[in-house]
């Protein structure tokens, strides 16, 4: 479960530290364990321009957030959405590599997490936060 990639991103987070400029801010909580992430993002021309975040949580949730931030930044929002679909499939796979490794990139490291149902929500926290932010930016509910 604790693959090197995960511990690596946990020790060296990407995108951590909230930027002052942002289109939307979301706050997501893992109610069963208390992990929290605040995420700020900007979008331009359908692409995710910046993702910054701050939060407290376990190595799984924090590393996952870093990997999502790194992967999504500078790419079309559709790319993130497609990767999220693959990641959700991976998390439903109970440890089987059942998703598109190309699209998942570094996030393939979480394959072992899917063997521990209680930790799946940790791995998904950052993804769900960015999904929420992207939906809000697409829906124009921000000013």
């Amino acid at each position, binding site marked *: *479960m*604790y693959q090197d990639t995960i*511990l690596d991103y946990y*020790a060296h987070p990407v995108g951590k530290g909230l930027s002052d400029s942002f289109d939307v801010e979301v706050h997501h909580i893992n109610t069963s*364990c208390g992990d929290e992430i605040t995420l700020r993002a900007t979008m331009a021309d359908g692409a995710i321009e910046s993702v910054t975040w701050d939060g407290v949580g*376990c190595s799984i949730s*924090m590393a996952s957030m870093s990997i999502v931030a790194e992967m999504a930044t500078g790419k079309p929002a559709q790319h993130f959405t497609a990767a999220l679909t693959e990641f959700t499939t991976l998390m439903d796979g109970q440890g089987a590599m059942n998703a598109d490794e190309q699209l998942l990139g570094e996030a393939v490291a979480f394959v072992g997490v899917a063997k521990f149902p209680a930790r799946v929500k940790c791995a998904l926290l950052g993804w769900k936060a960015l999904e929420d932010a992207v939906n809000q930016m697409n829906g124009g509910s921000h000013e």
Partner: protein
Amino acid sequence: MDALRIRDDFPILRRTVHGKPLIYLDSAATSQKPEVVIDAESDFYRLHNAAAHRGSHALAEEATACYEGARQRIADFVGAPAFELVFTRSATDSINLIAHGFLAATDHARQGRSADRRFVLNPGDSIVITEMEHHANLVPWQELCAKTGATLRWVSVDPSGRLRTEELDELVDASTRLVSWTHASNVLGHVVDPRPFVQAAAKSGAVTILDACQSIPHMPVTLPSLGVDFAVWSAHKMLGPTGIGFLWGRSELLNALPAVDTGGSMIGKVTMQGSTYLDAPARFEPGVPPMAQAVAAAAAVEYLSSVGMSEVFAHVSALASDAAQRLHAIDGVSVLGSPEDAPAIGVSFTVDGIHPHDVGQLLDADGIAVRVGHHCAWPLMQALGVPATVRASFSVYSTADEVAALVDSVMRCQEFFRLRTAGNGSSRTTGQVTSQVTSQVTGTVAT
């Protein structure tokens, strides 16, 4: 008390987890069950099953005798008369039963119906709890305050984890209708002296409730001698079955509390125009009751009594303080709680740089079951300034060897994270170099 002999009575302790012998240190969440409890529950179904308090056939009589016999046995265990003991679904249910009773009395008063004023809440009235409470002794009161306009006040916890009971003098005043607090912290594991709360509540005649979920399973408790009006606890934390909890109340007060859930077997007389209700405990037990669970809970009480509650407390508190000392001695491990409050039923700790969930996962790989997270006491986490903790908690079957295994596993966990997340900026390769070493200590999780 011989914990090794006691362990033979608990079938689950023979199993393995991830190929390692189970080390179950999560008894504060729920305890394991001895064979006699499992047998008592299934024997009821095998031999006596019928609906208690209904019918006059032999099995119905037996079921009634089993159920009421269990009530007597469990009431004896806490030094109370049987007619003061109500069977509920859980301790949480017991607290909600009182909260809903307050709400019903308040509604009755507002409708001009008769209501016992001790349970009537008006805007400006207050309820006093503590910042250390389990959500079950917090959220129902938040709800009740929102519905009645009463104000929730609480005794705060200092950063060391000490309850500032000196605040009771100011918090409890003429407006206070209810004071409810824990008898032992489910997070910090120490016993809370009820006396300051009882004394403060007496000033305004407030109703008092003791959350005894973590005390009654581990120590001798004679409820009527504590000076409280109500107490709640559950069977599953005291070697008993799930699905049944307890509400003890002083008889006079219990019978003044409005019935909340209504239906069969709690009624006196029913006509199409209206109904009368029985006295407690039947008043609060509509429907066919949890007979098999009551019988199994009585078997659990019997089992604990045969060990002796003073013995249980001596055993469990010795393990808790041993664990606290040994964990405290590890560099980078912090044991939570005030030095004034000796851990009695368990111990909470954090490990520098490693989130409690990661600690819990690595302990699990060693077959060690601990609770990680906020322990349904989120405000206490905030007061202590931590997002979560690791909690090891004990019962009659816990041993000093298990404490030693916990301590070893925590140190291996530190070693694992130290090697794998070395902050040298190139740990992606460092991790690979060290993976051979760490695979030995992490077992199944390293894959």
